[in-house]
């Protein structure tokens, strides 16, 4: 019988490297590392399941489901969520599994399934760097008069946020540019906490995203239909706010909780 502990620890080492690589902007390599980690964690979870070890089996299924999500295998992540949820699953782990299922379903509404073209990663990353996109996005969301402005001016925190913007938004922006006519349901927009609490930032976000779209268009005009690009720019605010609120918790907290101060787990 496979060694659950050995498989799990190998998976965690690979996942750690995956997060590290993703922080430095190499999404494709990170996907491969997460896929390798997933294979091990899934096997460990299946063995724990056979042995009916609780809470070990639930924790391993939750972990495997998140690895599948990070590897871009969202169907597999949903399957693993289903495997993790049984009558013996501890309530807190069950809630976290359901939370992941919700995240995947909302994301599916935002971005239809389509293989991501690797060329867009490099292209968008390059354009983002030249525009100073990450820095300007943070400044737009937490402007000079924001109560938590001093937090984003802290060099360490700012560095982390730039890395978070890059690693979390880059794949979605690249995918969005490959399908610029993607529509965001109004119901999703209404639920986005940042959008509802700080509508004043929308024009700046829209302008920033338009700049990015135009810069991408100039960089690789043969890849992009200009009419579709205009449509993309018009939807940009909604998409950007939604992505920020959903994918960068640290930044979303700074923006949305001005009176309480920044908290992090």
């Amino acid at each position, binding site marked *: 019988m496979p*060694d*659950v*502990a050995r498989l*799990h620890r190998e998976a*965690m080492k690979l*996942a*750690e490297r995956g*997060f590290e690589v993703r922080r430095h902007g190499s999404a494709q390599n990170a996907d491969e590392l997460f896929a390798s*980690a997933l294979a091990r*964690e899934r096997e460990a979870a299946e063995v*724990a399941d056979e042995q009916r*070890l609780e*809470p*070990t089996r639930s*924790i*391993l299924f*939750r*972990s495997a489901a*998140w*690895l599948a999500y*990070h590897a871009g295998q969202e169907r597999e992540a949903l399957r693993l969520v289903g495997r993790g949820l049984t009558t013996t699953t*501890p*309530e*807190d*782990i069950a*809630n*976290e599994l359901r939370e992941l299922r919700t995240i995947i379903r909302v994301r599916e509404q935002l971005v239809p399934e389509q293989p991501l073209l690797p060329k867009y990663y490099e292209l968008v990353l390059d354009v983002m760097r030249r525009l100073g996109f990450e820095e300007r996005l943070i400044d737009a969301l937490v402007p000079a008069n924001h109560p938590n402005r001093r*937090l984003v001016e802290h060099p360490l925190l700012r560095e982390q946020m730039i890395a978070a913007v890059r690693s*979390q938004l880059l794949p979605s922006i690249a995918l969005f540019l490959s399908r610029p006519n993607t529509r965001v349901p109004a119901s999703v927009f209404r639920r986005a906490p940042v959008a509802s609490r700080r509508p004043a930032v929308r024009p700046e976000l829209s302008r920033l995203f338009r700049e990015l779209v135009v810069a991408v268009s100039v960089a690789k005009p043969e890849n992009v239909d200009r009419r579709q690009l205009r449509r993309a720019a018009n939807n940009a605010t909604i998409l950007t706010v939604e992505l920020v609120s959903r994918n960068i*918790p640290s930044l979303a907290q700074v923006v949305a909780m001005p009176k*309480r*101060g*920044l*908290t*992090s*787990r």
Partner: protein
Amino acid sequence: MATLLVEQHLGVTVVERSVKGTGFDYYVGKSDASGDDLFQNVKRLEVSSIIQTGNIKGRVKKKLAQTRRSDNTGLPAVVVVVEYGPPRAEVADHA
């Protein structure tokens, strides 16, 4: 910081981790207790921090309430809240 505090005050150390969200979830226990049963006799490490000076007791209470919410079927937890203003920290072991 949280791992050092629980080692000092509760005599437990991080023995396992699992993936959750965009990082890891940590579990603490006796350093020699982790074998093939992985998460069987461990406690979840709940960490929180306050950058500005604030109500550290209130945050501990909130975190403990979160762990109590699932008392019947949930995992035991250790809560650590670090306040960076003074700085100071509060450790609560919720078995």
